């Protein structure tokens, strides 16, 4: 059987595609919606907004998350803001400009049709959130305020202090809570999806584990929506929450859903550097800091003077030097690589030489300490709690860290994967950011998918396929349940010598060293050799305590790490096969004379869609060609 990866982007002029789709899509009769059951896995921005909206429309919804409350999904951690093409600043913004910035920011590796739709609905998102009571920052006149983010020359980012993700998520959580109280959504917190159930080639349910009692259950539905976030923790250290995982998407992949562009991972330039082996996560310092902070390192390598003792002429403000028109606001991939480069030259600062300065001295002199405090006070406090240093007095030290994953399960224009009935939204899909995501665009995409896109497109699946809601007695459910129980018991029975964390750290270090900010054919081949060995040792020598019928955080973690062990190999393979540099994927062999990413549009302007072939068999790659009707691909320049 050959699977074809057709984008299903509607024909017609770019700006009319989404309107046309909405006009032509067949609607589900309101009286019938109640008969359709939808499972939503995840309660982040994407999942909570989708679950609430589907319930408002009349569908029967079950929603699952692994945290103790849907309000705690990882989306809560987003600091900086959310983009929308409102042009409230009258600075020349438009839907087209947001579309173009996103396509260019993604290094011309995303789908035109999807991205234009995203820019179109961005304006509705702000309206919706305001109506829900999201307390966005306001100006004295009472109107909404904006700030600038990397990769854009207009001011289109809406924000709620340094807690935009929190406020947007609470808005979605409250909408979800309202539907829960109306009985339209049944919420399952502290419940982890461990497998997808496929009946007659369609996604028709999930197997879950109750994280308090350990009970394994089967749930059937007419469609399944995955909104389970990104897989950045495959690198062990990242800015993601501890529980963020690839389990839901990976297990769906093993049931037939294609994984697209797994090698597109984003490294964020402004994180607090690693302080030692004990480190469990890395903390982001919002990109908004680059509005006022200046990035620099000493000109000479091995300069051990304190930052305040290094005079202007001995400092290299390398972003301003290399990218005069964007300066400190150059996109993330470019800023991150530039930081790595100066540290590789021995000019890094702080313990281990893996850091650069982000200096607010000039901004404080220009505005005042109070002004800077008003803008970023909470970030400066967070920095001080973690490092013990006062960033009003000495520059912050920052270094890039894994932050976001552009790759994810493949979806068509309707956000449905190649497995009919399986929809994937938010960071979990591969859709709109190409090879690099612009700041403040993930929140926009999660809410676009959940509030405004999926609720329409899921109806197309229901009206175009015969209704089938299987019973959980169906043999596919039984089989999946048995597999889940067996693999859990296998992990518990190894009783080896090394902890889950040790294995995760080992895998993560390998991934960061060989497949991180810079990749080569050689480093990737080395990783491909080493990953299976780590994986084998994991299954022979891991020590998972406790048993399966109780709250067992070790077991949860072990299951997630087991999936990372498999997934890591696919990520590296994808990176090896993509013999070009684009966005966050930087292959050292492919760079311009001045060290910028060198794309190869002739051969690589496609989406790599990986299909699982069973354990021990190499996966097969299919290509979805990227067709650009409107935009001309150019070499990205931020000079």
């Amino acid at each position, binding site marked *: 059987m050959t699977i074809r990866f057709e984008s299903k982007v509607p024909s017609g002029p770019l700006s009319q595609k989404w309107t046309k789709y909405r006009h032509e899509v067949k609607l589900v009769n309101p009286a019938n919606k109640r008969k359709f059951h939808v499972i939503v896995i995840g309660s982040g921005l994407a999942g909570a907004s989708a679950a609430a909206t589907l319930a408002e429309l009349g569908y029967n919804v079950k929603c699952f998350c692994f945290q103790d409350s*849907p309000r705690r999904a990882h989306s809560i951690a987003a600091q900086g803001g959310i983009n929308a093409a409102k042009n409230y600043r009258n600075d020349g913004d438009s839907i087209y400009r947001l579309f173009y910035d996103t396509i260019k920011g993604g290094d011309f590796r995303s789908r035109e049709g999807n991205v234009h739709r995203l820019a179109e609905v961005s304006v509705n998102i702000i309206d919706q959130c305001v109506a829900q009571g999201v307390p966005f920052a306001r100006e004295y006149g009472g109107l909404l305020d904006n700030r600038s983010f990397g990769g854009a020359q207009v001011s289109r980012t809406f924000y709620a202090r340094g807690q935009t993700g929190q406020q947007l998520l609470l808005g979605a959580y409250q909408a979800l809570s309202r539907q829960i109280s109306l009985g339209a959504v049944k919420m399952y917190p502290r419940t982890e999806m461990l497998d997808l159930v496929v009946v007659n080639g369609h996604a028709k349910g999930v197997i879950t584990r109750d994280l308090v009692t350990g009970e394994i259950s089967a749930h059937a539905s007419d469609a399944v929506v995955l909104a389970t976030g990104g897989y950045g923790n495959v690198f062990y250290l990242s800015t993601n929450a501890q529980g963020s995982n690839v389990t839901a998407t990976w297990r769906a992949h093993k049931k037939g859903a294609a994984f697209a562009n797994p090698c597109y991972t984003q490294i964020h330039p402004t994180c607090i550097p690693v302080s030692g082996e004990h480190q469990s996560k890395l903390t982001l310092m919002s990109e908004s800091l680059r509005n006022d902070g200046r990035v620099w390192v000493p000109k000479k390598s091995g300069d051990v003077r304190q930052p305040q003792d290094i005079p202007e002429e001995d400092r290299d403000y390398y972003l301003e030097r290399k990218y005069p028109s964007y300066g400190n606001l150059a996109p993330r991939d470019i800023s991150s690589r530039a930081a790595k480069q100066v540290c590789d030259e021995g000019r890094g600062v702080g313990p281990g030489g893996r850091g650069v300065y982000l200096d607010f001295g000039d901004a404080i002199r220009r505005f005042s300490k109070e002004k800077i405090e008003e803008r970023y006070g909470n970030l400066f406090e967070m920095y001080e709690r973690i490092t013990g240093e006062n960033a009003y007095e000495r520059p912050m030290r920052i270094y890039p860290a894994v932050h976001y994953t552009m790759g994810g399960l493949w979806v068509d224009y309707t956000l449905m994967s190649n497995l009919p009935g399986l929809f994937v939204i938010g960071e979990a899909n591969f859709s709109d950011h190409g090879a690099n995501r612009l700041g403040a665009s993930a929140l926009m995409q999660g809410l676009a998918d959940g509030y405004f896109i999926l609720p329409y497109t899921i109806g197309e699946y229901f009206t175009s396929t015969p209704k089938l809601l299987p019973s959980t007695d169906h043999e596919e459910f039984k089989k999946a349940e048995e597999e889940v129980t067996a693999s859990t018991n296998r992990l518990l029975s190894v009783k080896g010598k090394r902890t889950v964390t040790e294995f995760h750290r080992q895998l993560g270090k390998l991934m960061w060293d060989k497949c991180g900010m810079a990749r080569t054919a050689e480093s990737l081949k080395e990783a491909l050799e080493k990953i299976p060995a780590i994986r084998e040792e994991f299954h022979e020598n891991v020590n998972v305590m406790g048993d399966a019928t*109780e709250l067992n955080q070790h077991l949860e973690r072990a299951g997630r790490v087991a999936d990372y062990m498999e997934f890591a190999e696919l990520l590296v393979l994808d990176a090896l096969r993509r013999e070009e540099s684009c966005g966050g994927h930087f292959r050292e062999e492919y760079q311009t004379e001045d060290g910028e990413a060198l794309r190869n549009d002739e051969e690589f302007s496609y989406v790599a869609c990986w299909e699982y072939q069973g354990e021990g068999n190499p996966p097969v790659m299919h290509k979805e060609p990227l067709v650009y009707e409107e935009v001309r691909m150019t070499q990205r320049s931020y000079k």
Partner: protein
Amino acid sequence: MNLTLKVWRQKDASSSGRFVEYEARNIIEEMSFLEMLDVVNEELVAKGEDPIAFDHDCREGICGTCGIVIDGSPHGPWDATTTCQLHMRAFKSGDVITIEPWRAKAFPVIRDLIVDRSAFDRIIQAGGFISVSTGGAPDGNAIPVSKDDADMAMDAAQCIGCGACVAACKNASAMLFVSAKVSHLGLLPQGEVEQDRRVLNMVRAMDAEGFGNCTNIGSCEAVCPKEISVDFIGRMNRDYRRALLRNE
């Protein structure tokens, strides 16, 4: 540094718990409190003992998942700081640290340091929202909101729902949590419309969950990692009385 920990261990909701002593060795200042517990857990696993269960996720002070009573104080000794953001710089070698879960009737212990806070979700479900459905919202700038109101709404909206306020209160009252949500929504024109219904329903749900009364001592504000002000409690009381009068 080396520390002695007295940790509350409890197998599940129906078992009784007790304090168990552990040594935490080679702890460094740069570690967060939870990373210190990670180190202890790694050693426990190596010895074949059950690791200490504690809740956490973002580890950057925003998700509200973590929460431990440290030496009698919810989230420990630093002001305006969640447990995950507390760093070991706050302690010195030789310290003996007592570590226990939130204690409140409405927050039953699930295991060790983990408690069930679903009561908070049920209170929000009773009215902590604005009743608008997706679609059809007017332009975001259609209704201006004064900066002062927006800022004050944001002060209240910052609540992370961790439950430290309940854990700190001798009556295990949830007034700070509930008043933060009631005030956040009531301060905005969009939410003001259904404020009466909201405050009545949320207070009723709060009482039904078994949280205690507020006696104006202010321990909740003192431990709140987001420094939510007790002024919001006063504000909610006013809203509540007005709603009662109007809806009698």
